[in-house]
């Protein structure tokens, strides 16, 4: 009988121990998830101070940059990237592919290295070189200021970004590479600092679209 009780007690303690471990694991996971969420939203809350005139004025500068070859060449209306200051179709006609990273033997990173290659007419580089993916092409080419402004603030068309993430996107590595295009390529019409200022101003004043 005593032996039986000991066995029962042992079983009870073992079950309790397993339960405790499980509870702890759930708490740790929940805490971990919560921490991640907290980190993601730890930036200063975005304060919008609506001013349609200032917003539209700032977007004019933004639009000039986005339509420059350094930005637009990787936001084509078709599935082939553009090239050069005249934004012609990329030689060799590499295709977008599902993820925007090319197809088969013609993937972006096969030629585009993590850094710019030295010399004129050599491939510019970035560790994350790609086009927008096939399911969200984020086209700049051929878009009017009105269309582009509307597209940029629509999470269904801008890569699922909210306003805060849009602001952060100004410092994205691939965006920054527009100002480090490699030899022989023109820069966007204004500096990155000026662009960032206009970009943030546009968003923080309400991200108004210019008239159609």
């Amino acid at each position: 009988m005593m032996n039986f009780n000991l066995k029962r007690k042992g079983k009870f303690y073992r079950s309790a121990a397993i339960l405790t471990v499980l509870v702890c694991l759930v708490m740790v996971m929940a805490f971990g998830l919560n921490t991640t969420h907290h980190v993601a939203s730890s930036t200063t809350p975005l304060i919008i101070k609506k001013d349609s005139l200032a917003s539209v004025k700032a977007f004019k500068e933004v639009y000039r940059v986005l339509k420059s070859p350094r930005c637009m060449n990787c936001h084509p209306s078709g599935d082939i990237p553009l090239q050069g200051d005249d934004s012609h179709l990329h030689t060799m006609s590499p295709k977008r592919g599902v993820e925007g990273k090319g197809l088969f033997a013609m993937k972006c990173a096969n030629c585009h290295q993590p850094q710019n290659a030295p010399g004129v007419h050599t491939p510019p580089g970035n560790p994350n070189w790609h086009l927008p993916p096939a399911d969200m092409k984020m086209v700049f080419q051929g878009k009017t200021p009105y269309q582009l402004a509307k597209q940029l603030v629509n999470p269904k068309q801008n890569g699922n970004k909210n306003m805060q993430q849009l602001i952060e996107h100004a410092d994205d590595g691939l965006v920054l590479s527009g100002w480090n295009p490699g030899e022989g390529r023109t820069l966007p019409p204004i500096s990155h600092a000026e662009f960032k200022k206009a970009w943030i101003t546009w968003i923080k004043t309400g991200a108004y679209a210019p008239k159609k």
Partner: protein
Amino acid sequence: MFFTMISLNINQKLYEVDADPEMPLLWVIRDLVGLTGTKYGCGVAQCGACVVHLNGEAVRSCITKVSRASGQKITTIEGLSKDNDHPLQLAWNEENVPQCGYCHSGQIMSAAVLLRENPTPTDEDINNAMAGNICRCGTYPRIRKAIHLAAEMQKKKGAEK
């Protein structure tokens, strides 16, 4: 410029080369390791003659720094198969594809990635995969034919297993 010892895994064989990390992988493969099947064409990633596989991807070795390939898996035309019996190599022979032959190691290495990712390519798939490999002799129709044949061979080989 400084030289340093770099470990390379080429065709499943380990090599230690004393090279400038900025040196193009093609230089290392040809001049330091001595595998000359891969060719120099344009030197600016425009022609495809220098294609090798880096972790299975068809990179252009003329523009790829050797430092990018350090510790990675590199396959050259010499390592595509043990006895030159990759379906593409057999099909290339069968169809007498090359004329001067200079670009064909690059052509075959690009086609190998296509067949691995798409075992039954259409003409359009072949266009999409091979558009970056230029052939001065214009052997494109035979290249296309050989890729289709290799796809058949690969399918048969798979069925036999």
